[in-house]
């Protein structure tokens, strides 16, 4: 039995401690954001935040997550009230099939926290672990630039 803090809520999970977080999120907590893409840490479809850092949920055993904070796509906003990064992605209509986008949004969230002034090259380097097969990267980049800009403006206003 592991206790995980996901999107601000504690959950008791009855699964083997070596179980990758991805399956616990999807099956036990019924969260759809993190997706299975490769299970090998090669594609980023399963990206979630652990203590604000992006990690691959598919190669993260739940045993290592006791006492840490996990944030998934669902923790960044809801359909009725999307978060700033989600809003930027919606504004740029940055999706084709959309399967990779949750991972992209989560990684963008981490980028904003770590490098709010990221240059174009820094954005691309930071996003490089996440793959998109539909070729939506051009739009995703636009959405990221917008999200960065909007959070910077929001900060100035605050």
């Amino acid at each position, binding site marked *: *039995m592991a206790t995980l803090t996901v999107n601000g809520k504690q959950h008791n999970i009855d699964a*083997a*401690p*070596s179980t990758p977080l991805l399956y616990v999120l999807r099956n036990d907590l019924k969260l759809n954001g993190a997706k299975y893409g490769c299970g*090998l*840490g090669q594609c980023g479809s399963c990206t979630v935040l652990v203590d604000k850092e992006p990690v691959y949920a598919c*190669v993260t*055993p739940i045993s*290592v997550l006791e006492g840490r904070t996990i944030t998934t796509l669902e923790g960044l906003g809801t359909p009725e009230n999307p978060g700033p990064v989600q809003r930027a992605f919606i504004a740029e209509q940055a999706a084709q099939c959309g399967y990779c986008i949750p991972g992209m949004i989560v990684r963008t969230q981490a980028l904003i926290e770590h490098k709010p002034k990221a240059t174009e090259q820094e954005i691309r380097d930071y996003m490089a672990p996440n793959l998109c097969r539909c070729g939506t990267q051009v739009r995703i980049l636009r959405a990221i630039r917008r999200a960065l800009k909007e959070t910077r403006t929001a900060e100035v206003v605050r």
Partner: protein
Amino acid sequence: MRRFLLGLITFGVIGFAAFFVWAWHSEIAPVRAADSTTYDPAVVAKGAALASVGDCVTCHTQPGGKPFAGGYPVSTPFGTIYGSNITPDQDTGIGNWSQAAFRRAMHQGVTRKGEHLYPAFPYDHFTLANDGDIDAIYSFLMTRDPVQQANKAPDIPFPLNIRLAAAGWKLLFLRQGQLVPDPQQSAEWNRGAYLAEALGHCGACHSPRNFLGAEKKGEAYNGGVSDDWHAPALNEKSTAAAPWTVEAVYKYLHNGFDQYHGHPSGPMQAVAENLAKVPEADVRAIAVYIASLSGTDDAAKQQRADAALMTARAKTPTVESLAATTGSATTGATDGATIFAGACANCHRSGGQSPRARPVDLSLSNSVNAPDPGNLLHIVLSGIHPQSRERGFIMPGFATTLTDEQIVALAAYVRSNFSDKPQWTGIDTRLTQARKHSGP
């Protein structure tokens, strides 16, 4: 007494003057770079291969930068030195260097203008290279795209930042001259020795250095340090689980993978990527030479290698054994076996169909058997990534996934489970250093 002192001073002054005269090099007149089409393509191709053996592009290219335009930070115990621009740019590169100036730089570690170069540029090796080969490398470099990019000054504190210090270093450690072929050895071995010593400068990383940063001659290939990575011993002191046979070295260097040792990571990854572009015969020659450092390639060596492979395979966990050990156990957050089962075993186990290209059995991994956990920690933190657009192993880094305690536990588990060597001490302090080195 006075006379003695005076004598000593006089001697010192004369000595210093002599040193100064010895150390002083005149400027070689600048030239206008010749049109790149005037170089013989066959010589350029030869130079390209030799430059790959020399791994020139690595230290002369900054991350993400234009090849050979310089800027790569080489960290030394004395400070950071930046690889220089060796493109044929007239102003910032070596476009105005004559062939003679280039030869002098390679042999004596002096710029065209006559300034002494720091020995991070391994002229203590290049000095052994013959003129024909140096000229070929010159042709190759002079036919690259010129890139205007100013050189970065080294971050080296006083008094070492006085270039003359490098001259003092040379007086002590630089031995010019040709490599004398060993008549006892085959032509292939001698070729390999030449390539490895005069160009490949393998010893620059794989040999320990003294307090002045010179390779300890008596301890060649006892293992050294490169960029916070351990460069393993290549002689009989090697800690590799399987001995290095010619075939193994060849595959490791040329294909970037050998089933007895895995594949090069850290600074060695780039070396192998460059050697992949070198004619096979030359890589084989290097392999013959390097393998000979740890004893003759005979049936016994091969048997030891195969035995190590068999043992390693037997030790590699199956899905079932993993499930049995960790499936239902209630374990804490720092149980190495559980972390391994959940984070690593997907690839580092036997059987199954995924991933198709299997990493080496961990019992054979050089990092797992190394005297110091640094390499393993670096790999766990940063993962392994092929060059942009190339096929190659991808291992995700766990720097953000695992806490320090968890990484220490995992490293200790891997060491005790996969290596016969004694447990490492001070994994935690080594981890702190590695984290600092690999940045946030």
